[in-house]
């Protein structure tokens, strides 16, 4: 799992280069505070939760597969696999990286109903994300969820979330 990803000496600001890009895999999360762009691709029924502290530009992105860690007999603890445990971990890591939990705002993407075979997973992921964010007192400022379309997101410095759908439609949340 990625945590605060080290920027080494290659920060964007001091060299005028394009910002560093940090990929977040499925069931994974990452936190940055150096202006890097966080990306995650191929969101189907999974849900992406993007959190930003707009004052410090500390940002985190979670790509969770399943709604809840409860009742799962999985043998490897991997908090980012689940919306609830992943969100808790993400908030903790943001706080460690300099974000104020009270200032966090959320953007929510994904949770599509990709297949009839597994139709319930996407909406349940979205519902769980809304519940957990409400419990944590984090407002959802924008969302692009549901439908039957895959999405790819880029979480940019400043907090904008660029969402590209499989049909080529792009929007910024």
């Amino acid at each position, binding site marked *: 799992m990625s945590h605060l990803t080290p920027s080494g000496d290659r920060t964007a600001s001091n060299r005028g280069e*394009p910002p560093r890009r940090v990929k977040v895999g499925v069931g994974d999360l990452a936190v940055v505070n150096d202006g890097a762009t966080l990306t995650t691709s*191929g969101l189907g*029924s999974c849900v992406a939760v993007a959190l930003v502290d707009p004052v410090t530009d500390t940002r985190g992105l979670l790509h969770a597969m399943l709604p809840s860690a409860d009742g799962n*007999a999985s043998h490897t603890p*991997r908090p980012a696999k689940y919306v609830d445990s992943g969100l808790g971990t993400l908030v903790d890591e943001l706080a460690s990286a300099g974000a104020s939990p009270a200032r966090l705002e959320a953007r929510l993407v994904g949770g599509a109903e990709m297949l009839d*075979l597994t139709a319930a997973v996407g909406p349940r992921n979205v519902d769980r994300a809304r519940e957990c964010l409400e419990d944590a007192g984090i407002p959802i400022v924008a969302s692009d969820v549901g439908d039957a379309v895959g999405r790819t997101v880029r979480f940019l410095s400043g907090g904008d979330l660029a969402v590209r759908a499989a049909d080529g439609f792009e929007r910024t949340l």
Partner: protein
Amino acid sequence: MRVDVRALGACNRLAERGAERAANALGELTGSDLAVEVTGASVATGEDLAEAFSGRESIGVRVGLDGGLEGQAVLAFDAEQIDGLLSVLPGGASMGRSAVTEVGNIALGGFLDGWANYLGRAIDMTPPRYFEADGAAVLPDGALAGDGVFLFESRLDATGTDLDFSIYMLPDSGPFRDLVVGKTATAATVGAEGAGGSAGGANATAVPYESLSTFASLAKRGSANAADNIGMMTGLETTVDVSRLRFVPLADVPSEVGTEPHAGTVFELQGKPSGYLAILFSEESAAAIAEAMLPMEPDQPLGDMAENALCELGNVMTSGFIDGWANVLGTSISHSPPEFVHDIGSATVSPLVASLSRRQDYGFVIDAAIRTEGIQARCDVYALPDERELAAALERLSET
């Protein structure tokens, strides 16, 4: 001797950590950001490996291993990417062979450190040897002999630069068997704690070592049957290019499918084992094969007519695939009606992965690339069986 298939999970995590170290070492050397995309452990026969690597040219280094692990490790770049690699290295293209050797040495050292830490024993590396190899000659010595070998592959992605490479490690079977058995005890303990008393416990995934080579035949028989069925249905000559069974973290499967648009069909499997099967074509391939199957040119490349054709094709391929499994395992497996999919590849498989993730973190992925002659069409088959049910089927097989 029994092997817990979860022990393969421990080995896989180790390979993943090793690959991360290799990525960091290489990233520091080249000034690029490198990320580990996929790490997989595969079980394959020499014959399958030879087929899988035919037509590929590789450049890289190999080292011999002694101590904590014995055998050989290979770091390989695709020959087509070598210019990209040299352009980011200090010294550039003028360094050529010595630069590749140095990169290989550093990255393999990083990779093996991860294993040595875990094992608590040093692993000695012989000096790196540079090679340029055609086809399966890239693989460690001994990979093509025998009938069931473990191989660890990692693919790295260089953000901003087109650069990725694979690490192959084929520990000599004797010491590696001991390692797997040693891990069995650990995995069983961890499993029992983590399971919280769930039905089956850790032993539910233990299979006799000898059964592991049966995995390879699952991949092979399934895809060969599927290809035969396409041939019968379309009249086109159809061949299987690649068929391998790998043990990978489920979360890596979507990124392996990639973010390009795909079209195809998805099935739910019922029986022993249950699971999912996805047959995915690139958009161009899907349109081409649908057109070849239809009596007239469709109005739209991937419209309703093409969808029907692809569903029908998916049906015959899937029934071929699971007949192959059922023959190997001596079980009965059925499948749901096809569900047509047309979307970002990784988004299509993510709900399947999510569904299996409730019960397991790792999956057996069968990759089969099936190619039809005469028209440009190629598809990938991702078979994702339930690991406990697969282990149980293999167990029964060994008792008969």
